[in-house]
């Protein structure tokens, strides 16, 4: 079956839906998602979305600009960051006009709270910048955008799992997908394709991410021979629920929660005396891991405490109700009465599909565009987050750059018309054959076992702290898992809702780019942002103030680099 649309967007999180909304004002738009749209993981974002609105106290676009650059450990591209912080204002007011139920100040404005690394006057102290809806900010924006897409008659293909992009002569032709409910493989023929496919937390054992977050977009792009950028930068969020990884928003610390070790100390005063618990995530995660490694974890275990008790029940219920709810239901702890045991959890990918500020995908990571192919949100790398993302800048990036990509697609279609280049049948067939091929593999390896081993090695050797020996072992392990993956056995041979098959396809993607994460971490011989090498503990601007571009040719990884765009803020030592 071939489905035709002007615009096909893959992924129904904030980036995908915001772009769909923009393009659906002029063109026929389809959104393809392996979940139902409101199940997308953007909905799990809790704490807020950044904009220097100054609704509660003085704030400036330039302060937000500086904080984001400094937070990125100077690897963020400053031209892109300027768009991020400027467009934040119209993008958030638009969400409000669409009906997004933000929490309000007494005079009825959008309320704002503190968040890690967001400061007043270029680093003086925390500032109230994160626009929020209690601790359900992502949920509220996601549902608002979905509702607006319903209004605009966006066509949704839910539970369609994307398998490949079809590119020929450097022009995008469409995608292939597996229609889970219908039980068939489908080709979608489109003039423009956008990816908003999200992150890959499920490459790690402890993660805040949903089971669906397997970085499928990155696997697809890599298979098509396109480049990926800065994959070595993986954010570990400081406060994942111990053993579960579930996110406890930085908003909790924004409201005043403490981090406490086994000696009862607020240990952040040793690491970030000025910002304390509101230091950026890379620094805070390292601080927690150091406390644990040096024996000050709670009762010697791999966790410290996040203490909300002094905030009081009323404030917790008003500002952090969802956190209270899942703590009680899932781990059986009421944060009103007990501190929450937490550990760093794999959370966000700073790297991804290289794009320019208009969302156009760059095949070589630098200048060569793929006509009609766009990406935005976590799967992309603009790069506004550089080596470390600030909290609340991810929802912002998804909305701002989803919006920009939507506008770019409209401009492109206005200029070029909607007549599509041919969809090459041989490429479609090859893609279908590849999927079907998974079902006929004859080994005895289990997808679940290989995935578990991958997650384990990524967590222990490619985590908060890294070093050459461990990274080399991890690389060897990932490569051996790739070999074993060739001998998997899929129990389910049917066509209808075959999640046995989709889990194998997901694992194939995970293995492909996990190799890039590990080898990128090994390749980058410095410590910057979320990449910390014990054997190279210093930032090295002379050799490494540059983005990594990686492609896979004939199974081998090839590296290239591109300079960081620096317009206003020169790199300096990063202290908080």
């Amino acid at each position: 079956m071939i489905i035709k649309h002007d615009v096909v967007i893959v992924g129904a999180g904030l980036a995908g839906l915001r772009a769909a909304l923009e393009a659906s004002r002029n063109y026929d738009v389809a959104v393809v998602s392996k979940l139902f749209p409101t199940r997308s993981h953007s909905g799990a974002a809790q704490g807020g979305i950044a904009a220097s609105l100054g609704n509660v106290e003085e704030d400036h676009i330039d302060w937000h600009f500086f904080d984001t650059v400094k937070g990125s450990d100077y690897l963020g591209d400053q031209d892109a960051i300027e768009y991020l912080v400027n467009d934040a204002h119209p993008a958030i007011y638009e969400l409000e006009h669409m009906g997004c139920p933000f929490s309000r100040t007494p005079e009825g404005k959008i309320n704002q709270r503190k968040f890690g690394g967001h400061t007043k006057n270029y680093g003086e102290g925390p500032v109230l910048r994160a626009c929020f809806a209690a601790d359900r900010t992502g949920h509220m924006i996601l549902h608002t955008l979905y509702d607006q897409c319903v209004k605009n008659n966006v066509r949704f293909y839910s539970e369609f799992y994307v398998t490949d992009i079809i590119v020929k002569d450097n022009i995008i032709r469409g995608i292939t997908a597996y229609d889970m409910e219908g039980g068939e493989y489908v080709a979608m023929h489109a003039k423009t394709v956008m990816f908003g496919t999200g992150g890959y937390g499920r490459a790690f054992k402890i993660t805040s991410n949903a089971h669906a977050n397997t970085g499928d977009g990155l696997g697809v792009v890599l298979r098509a021979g396109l480049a990926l950028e800065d994959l070595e930068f993986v954010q570990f969020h400081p406060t994942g629920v111990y053993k579960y990884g579930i996110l406890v928003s930085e908003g909790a610390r924004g409201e005043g929660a403490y981090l406490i070790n086994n000696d009862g100390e607020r240990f952040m005063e040793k690491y970030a005396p000025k910002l304390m618990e509101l230091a950026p995530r890379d620094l805070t995660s390292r601080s927690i891991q150091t406390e644990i490694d040096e024996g000050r974890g709670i009762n010697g275990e791999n966790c410290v405490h996040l203490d909300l008790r002094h905030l009081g029940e009323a404030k917790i219920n008003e500002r952090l109700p969802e956190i209270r709810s899942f703590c009680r239901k899932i781990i059986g702890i009421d944060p009103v009465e007990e501190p929450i045991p937490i550990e760093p959890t794999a959370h966000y990918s700073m790297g991804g599909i290289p794009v320019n500020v208009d969302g156009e995908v760059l095949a070589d990571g630098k200048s060569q565009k793929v006509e009609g192919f766009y990406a935005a949100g976590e799967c992309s790398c603009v790069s506004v987050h550089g080596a470390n993302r600030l909290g609340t800048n991810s929802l912002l990036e998804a909305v701002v750059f989803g919006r920009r990509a939507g506008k770019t697609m409209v401009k492109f279609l206005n200029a070029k018309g909607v007549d599509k280049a041919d969809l090459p049948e041989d490429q479609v067939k090859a893609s279908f054959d590849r999927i079907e091929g998974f079902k006929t593999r004859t080994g005895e390896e289990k997808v679940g076992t290989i995935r578990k081993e991958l997650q384990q090695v990524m967590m222990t050797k490619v985590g908060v702290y890294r070093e050459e020996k461990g990274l080399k072992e991890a690389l060897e392990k990932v490569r051996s898992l790739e070999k074993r993956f060739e001998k998997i056995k899929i129990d389910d041979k049917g066509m209808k809702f075959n999640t046995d098959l989709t889990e194998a396809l997901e694992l194939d993607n995970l293995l492909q780019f996990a190799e890039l994460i590990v080898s990128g971490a090994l390749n980058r011989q410095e410590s910057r942002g979320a990449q910390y090498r014990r054997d190279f503990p210093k930032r090295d601007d002379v050799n490494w103030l540059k983005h990594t571009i990686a492609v896979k040719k004939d199974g081998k990884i090839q590296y290239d680099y591109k300079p960081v765009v620096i317009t206003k803020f020169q790199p300096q030592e990063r202290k908080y």
Partner: protein
Amino acid sequence: MIQVKVKVYRFNPENDQQKPRFETYTVEADPKDKVLDLLHRIKWEQDGTLAFRRSCAHGICGSCAMKINGANMLACEANLKNFKDPTNIIVEPLQSLPIIKDLVVDLKDFFKKYEIVKPYLINKTPPPTKERFQSPEDRQLIDEATWCIQCASCSTSCPSNWKNPNFLGPAALLKSYRYNFDSRDEGTAERIHVLDTNDGVWRCHTIFNCVEACPKDINITWHISQLKKKLVSREY
């Protein structure tokens, strides 16, 4: 560790020979495990053909609603220690919807009803350059209704819905409340005709099953009653 007998509803649409049936699996579990953990262990270690939906695993995405020991809940939140007998668990798909495969139900009709209530802000007044103001009190009025994750636990537990499939159902009506009671909205007159019918709010007979089933603890019946009140008092 405990041994749990998990009895799972199975249905494969591609195998005509097999009628819907229950299959029982024995799973090793920690008493603090959730039912979703058990389903994963079955799928990953024993039988890859088992189909069910899930994603976030902490109660915010709404994918894994199913019937567990007779009650609708999210499998990711269904803590073994909360069951009278945690060693015997029965898992079935949400009641009253067509079954696609095993625990996966067809939600097309559920979401069609969602679209019928015009689930979006309607405001024809051009917006200001900044935000529209809304008082914390006005915001509070819609708060509970915005918690909904569209998991379908409520609508599939509603006897009025079982009896009358055309009933809009609690989830769509809750969504209708969310926009009709938003102080920024001007669309009630456009939305009212689908509510003020036998298949709209009046089919709700205040049975409260939806409230019991809701994993987000939303008092859905109260919200539907507010819609009824709005209709009878013509406050629109």
